Each structure stands twice: as C-alpha cells, then as structure tokens.
C-alpha cells in the first residue's frame, strides 16, 4: 500500500525533500526533528533548516548554546569531582543520564552505568593535589590535572615554558570566573523569580506549598550568592595577581578544541580558556534532560573557593621555594659548623672526606637563628626513628631527614631543602656513592 503524500506525509523510507520541507515550514506544519541517525547528516539538515526558517535558526542557535553549556558544565563537574566525592557522584549521574538519553550516541557505550570505568577518571592520589583527575585519555581529558595537562595529546602544541603550576592557576581562575558569573546571574535573576513565586503563592491554590518552597529556596540561594560573589571576586583577583607575580603573564599556552579550533595565547584568561576548553574526543551533545545539575553558585561556588584557596596556597609555596636560597655552605675544614648530611652516614666511602664536605658554618646557623645542638638533637632522633623501620638508608631519606632536622631546629623549610640539596649535590659530584650506614644506628 502506498502512503499518500497529501496532507503533510513523507514517503515511507525516504528522506523529505527540501521542497517539501520548505512547504511545510511556510504552512506552519511541524517538520521532522531529525533527518536520520547519521549525526553529520542531521547537523547538516538542521543547518539547512536554519537557513530557511527563523524558527529553526533560533532552534539551532539554542542547540549550539546548549552544547556549549553542557560542555562547560561537564568541565565544571570534572574539576569539582576532583575534590569532592559529592561532585564525583554528580558527575557520574550526569554522564549516565547523558548516555541514557542519547542511547544512539557513542557516549552510551562510554558512560553506561555498568561500564563506568574509574580508569578513565583516575585520581592522582598524591600530593599536592590528591584526588585530582589525571589524564585518562578518555572523554574527560580537558578538565584534568597538571599531569593531564602536560600529557594530553592535543597539548603537543603547548609551549615548553608553560608549567603545570601556571595551568593550575589559570584553570582555577577560569572556574572561579565561571562561578562568579553564575553568582552574578543569580543575583540578577533570583529577585524576580522569587517575586513571581511569591505572587503565585499569594494567589493561593492547591500548589501554594510548592510556591512557598520555591520562595524559600530562592531566598536561600540569593543569600548564598550575595555572600559568595565578593569572595569569588577577591579570589579571582588573587589568582590573577599570583599568576602575574609568578611571571606567567607573557608565557603562551595553546591547545585545540574538539572542533580543532586553536585556542589559548598569553594571559590568564586565554590560558585558562585553553586549559579548560581543550578538546574532548566525543564532545557533548544536548541530552534533553532538563536537570541542571550544577547551575547554582550555591552548589559549586564554595567548592571553587576551596579549590582556589588550595591553588593559591600552592602557588605561594612554589614562589617561596623558587626564591629560597640555600644557606651558605663551606667546606668543614674552612669554617666548621654543622655537617648536613651527618658525616657518619658516609663513613667508609673512599670518596667521602668529612673535612672537605660542605657544612653550614656556625655564623650562618646563627643568621638563621638555628642552634647547632638543636639540629643535632633533631638529626639523631630522626635517624633513630628511621633505623627502627629496618630499611636501607638512601639519598632520598638522607635528604628528607636532614631537611626535617634543620626545619625542626627552626630553619625555613625552603631554605633547609635548598641547603641540604646543595650539600648532597656536592657529595655526589665528589663521587660519594651513597650512605653507608644510619648515623647513631647500630649498623
């Protein structure tokens, strides 16, 4: 039986012709939402519709906006999930909902509940950002960690001088800016929304309780946004200042988007954009799910603040470490002082000479307000604690113990670390192979 083409029908098994679609549009009749399952063809079809119809042009624009928003939200979630179990669960739900609602898409295979693969969202599990996502090579690559940033394939174009610390600052700035914009939107829109809900409540009716709840929720969010906005604004300024102080302003960083648009440049805004928005293999598609998982600044704002604070703290520590100079070291024969590392640790090594080994002279210890007996006391305790483990003493342990001993005696940690490293470097350069025994230990 043949299907009639009169009355707006489309021949079975055939795609609608452009003329037919154009006619339907002029008549105001509904047109098929999809040209088929071929995604490229569907996009082409929608673009064509947009050319002939303002309504579809608007729909296409909305679709593109939604795609952008979804991608942005996913980036946010991936970033927040790195520090919050709550957001990790939200991310998982988000990806699963996305997959379910677009079952025909490849994303379904990737994110179906039974196939959630933690390996695609690995956490680094160690300092300084325990819990951050590392590059999994999957769809979440863009919102990742320093490690991900430096290993993602599409970052091959990144300049050599862009450091993980720089990207971390830029990424934190970008997310803070997003959260601030969100808070501003809430400050702008919520009063009207609350007023509408209040008016509906005043009208009475069976849904009064819902309107009352909406008014209360809206007021709560508004208060939170009022509190968050200035804090986010300050954090934004602090991140920019830290970025500037670290000397990153002129360092370029570039990457590609999923559509292979090159983004980035120099400056925290552009670098942040590139660090966050660089390509995800599959990209995101609108799901039709009307659940806005992270719209409120009340939800992600505090998490952004916590993350920003951590990033700023690390940046400050990193800056101090860069600036830290070791204490003056001289061969022990010249000025005496404190052997760091302890000389007993190298007894028996033919290349070790305690007289030529570098030491912190007494006046240098005094300059750092460090007493020799205090360092020796801490040194001995730390070596004896290590000896109880029954492990072999290594260069790494020597560095840790000697640094800690100086710190416990009152020296700045960065100066202590730089000092011990320099002393160890000198020992290694003189051919000392490594520790031969644990000082004050029995072996």
């Amino acid at each position, binding site marked *: 039986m043949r299907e009639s083409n009169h009355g707006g029908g489309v021949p079975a098994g055939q795609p609608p012709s452009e003329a037919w679609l154009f006619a339907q549009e002029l008549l105001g009749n509904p047109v098929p939402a999809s040209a088929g399952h071929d995604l490229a063809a569907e996009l082409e079809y929608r673009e064509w519709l947009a050319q002939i119809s303002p309504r579809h042009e608007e729909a296409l624009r909305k679709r593109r906006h939604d795609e952008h928003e979804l991608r942005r939200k996913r980036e946010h979630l991936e970033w927040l999930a790195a520090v919050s179990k709550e957001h990790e669960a939200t991310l998982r739900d988000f990806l699963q909902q996305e997959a379910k609602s677009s079952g025909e898409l490849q994303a379904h295979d990737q994110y179906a509940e039974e196939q959630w693969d933690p390996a695609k969202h690995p956490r680094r599990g160690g300092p300084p950002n325990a819990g951050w996502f590392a590059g999994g090579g999957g769809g979440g690559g863009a919102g990742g960690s320093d490690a991900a940033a430096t290993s993602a394939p599409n970052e091959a174009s990144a300049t050599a001088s862009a450091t993980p610390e720089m990207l971390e600052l830029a990424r934190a700035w970008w997310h803070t800016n997003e959260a601030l914009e969100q808070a501003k939107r809430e400050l702008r829109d919520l009063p009207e929304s609350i007023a509408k809900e209040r008016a509906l409540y005043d009208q009475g009716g069976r849904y009064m309780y819902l309107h009352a709840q909406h008014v209360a929720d809206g007021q709560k969010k508004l208060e939170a946004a009022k509190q968050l906005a200035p804090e986010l604004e300050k954090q934004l300024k602090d991140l920019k200042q830290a970025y500037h102080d670290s000397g990153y302003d002129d360092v370029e960083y570039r990457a590609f988007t999923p559509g292979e648009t090159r983004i980035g440049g120099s400056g925290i805004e552009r670098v942040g954009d590139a660090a966050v928005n660089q390509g995800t293999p599959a990209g995101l598609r609108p799901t039709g799910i009307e659940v806005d998982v992270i719209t409120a600044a009340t939800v992600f704002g505090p998490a952004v603040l916590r993350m920003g604070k951590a990033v700023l703290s690390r940046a400050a520590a990193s800056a101090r470490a860069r600036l830290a100079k070791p204490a003056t070291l001289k061969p022990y024969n010249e000025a005496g002082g404190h052997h760091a590392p302890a000389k007993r640790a190298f007894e028996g090594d033919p290349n070790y000479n305690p007289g030529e080994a570098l030491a912190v002279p007494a006046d240098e210890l005094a300059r750092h*307000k460090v007493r*020799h*007996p205090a360092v020796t006391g801490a040194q001995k305790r730390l070596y*004896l604690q290590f000896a109880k483990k029954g492990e072999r003493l290594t260069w790494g342990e020597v560095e840790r113990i000697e640094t800690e001993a100086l710190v*416990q005696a009152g*020296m700045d940690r960065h100066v202590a670390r730089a000092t011990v490293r320099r002393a160890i470097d000198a020992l290694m350069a003189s051919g000392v192979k490594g520790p031969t025994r644990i000082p004050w230990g029995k072996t």
Partner: protein
Amino acid sequence: MNSEIQEFARTLIARVRDEAIRSSDIAIQRPAVDPMAKRWQKVADSMSSDELIRIVIADVVDETLFFFLNAIDDGSLSLVYRSSSGATVDLTTEGHGELSGWYLGSDGWRATYSKERFVEDFPDSAETGQEH
C-alpha cells in the same frame, strides 16, 4: 705551661666556651624559632625570673657540654680517655663523630646518667619541652 697545654686552652675556650655562649645568644633573638628559644620566651612571659634562671642554668650547661663533645667529634680537641681499668680510648676515633649526638635524646647520656634537671627538646615520645 707548655705550648701543647696552651693550644688546648685556646681550643677549649674558642670551641667550647665561646661557641656555647654564641649559640645560647641565639635563644634570646626574637622572634624565637629555635625550640630552646621558644621555651625561654614562654617561661619569661609566664613565670618568675627565678624560674627562668633555673631553666637557663641547666640549658647553658647542656649547651656547653654539647660544644665540648662536638669539639672532640670534629677532632679539634683530640682527647684520649683512660678508663678506671686503665684502658685508653681515642674519643674522636672511637666516637665516630657522634658523641655530641649521644649526649642528647631520650636515650642519651644526659637522660641516662644525669641526676639533675634537663629539658629534652627532641624526645622519642610526644613530651617535647618537658622538664625531667
């Protein structure tokens, strides 16, 4: 007095007395970062001057003995000890440069043999800064 004893005297004063005084002076610098300096400051802020002097006496004796042993450790004071049995031991050689460390700590000579008060700033347990 022969020249060897003169040399011993010079070394003793320079490496023990003077270094102990200079090192103790660090404890009166502000802000205090050294453990002993922090203790002194705390006592000075909250206790009588007699209490402070009482603590300082023990600390300065320990400081002096530390530098005495440290001078033996690095060979500046090359001393040989004759035991009650008549056996001799070269303290620098046999001490392996660790005598000053052996003096300190929860299991150190001071904690083991002293009958007078002292404060251990780096004990094995958590009781840092407590007087013994």
